[in-house]
């Protein structure tokens, strides 16, 4: 099975800084309280680099880009 990169958010670690939604509006939006909602789990190849950057800059390391089936 082909493995593709997907976005995961650890809801316990997340404090709603909102940087992920800033960097990845195609995949993530914020709810009424400023916490991220994943609109689309799969990361297209064109967004992979910026998704990795979003993962690195998340202040609480709640955002994760993982290869998953």
């Amino acid at each position, binding site marked *: 099975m082909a493995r593709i990169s997907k976005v995961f958010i650890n*809801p*316990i670690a997340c404090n709603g800084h909102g940087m992920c939604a800033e960097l990845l509006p195609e995949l993530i939006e914020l709810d009424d309280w400023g916490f991220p909602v994943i609109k689309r789990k799969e990361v297209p190849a064109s967004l992979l680099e910026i998704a990795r950057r979003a993962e690195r800059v998340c202040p609480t390391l709640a955002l*994760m880009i993982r290869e998953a089936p």
Partner: protein
Amino acid sequence: MESDTSSQSFPRLAVGGQLLIAGKVAVMPHEALSFEDHSALLGSAAPYFNSLHHIKKHLAQCEIYGRGGAAFPLSRKLSAYEPYKGKLVVVANGSESEYLSGKDAALLSRHPHLVLDGLSILSSALGAKSAYIHVKSSKASMVGTVERALEERGSFDPVTLELSFSDSEVGYPGGVETAVISSISGMGGKPIYIPSRPILRGIKRRPTMISNVETLAQLALLTRFGGAWFSAVGGGNEAGTRLMTVVSPTGISNVIEVVAGTSFSEVFDALSIYRESVNCGLLGGYFGQLLDPDKLWSLHSGVHTMKKAGLSLGAGVVALSQRCPLVETAQILKYLANETSGQCGPCYMGLPELASLWWELSTARVTQKLIDRIMRVGEQIRGRGGCAMPDGAVMLSAASLTNFRQELLNHQSSGCSLTNGGSHLIPTNITTGRN
């Protein structure tokens, strides 16, 4: 191995009488049954230490549905863990964090050895590395009972059974599977985030099977007396009995044992609870929903019939109320908002807002705008917590909007017509009012 007890007649209901061993004990012991008395009552323990194969054979004859709330078939759970045989940690979950439920405490304080038998059977069948009985530290007398019971067993069990406590500071989510894992691993006892299949990376990072204490007691009885005995009561594809906590409209809590599939009207009759004194009832605890009395009185308690009706008995809680269902919904949501572990934004931000909106809905005028906002907030919370507690709150909220359309209309035109005293559906230390 089958005993001849299958021909015995069983009481349909045991109110404050027998617990789980219907037809075997005349009266429920006032205090915990000692290991000696327990063994005398059930006969020699040796034959009921079964292989996994035998347990599955028994379950094929009559399924046991998990009694912690999810009603998941035990046979399927066992199949999911079977590949990890020899590496597992097994936990009997007696933390009973549902405030209204009293059945697990009742069971553990009277028949601790029945639960420990179940835990022992399961852990030896699965070749478990460790086995824990997990209880709430705040219930001191029950903890003492379990401690004594473990001492009495000595080295009887093939796998050493250990006692573990949950932190009493952790509220409602303390009974969640990942919270139990966190507690036993010394991580504080709040739900933790384990991405993808937490069951495989639980205590000591081993696959961890967590079962409710009543499920294990049932397993002990099924393997001890066999399928024929077990299914001598009940009907259809649901056999045996189950424990229920019924809270009367005046706030009196009763733990009773009912035959699977018994109608609720029978249960209420037996407890002298009358339809006229009830305005709504919470079915399935805080993960369930509030229903109107007509619906409650027409229901049967079978897992399958309930499921067909989109309902669940949860951990076996039915709590009745004389109060307005909209006010009760607001109260329960307020309670749940207070119980948040404060870990996940959608929970600690969303639940207080949901509770506050419901408070407005139940005490002020009902407007479409308010209802729309309740639905919007619910949609945003759903599926986004680290545990399922926020989802439970959202389901309760959505169900009350659907189940009490008439009350909403009445409130809209003339406000609430009921006098609303203190609620029995939440702990009394929760004050009413806006957040």
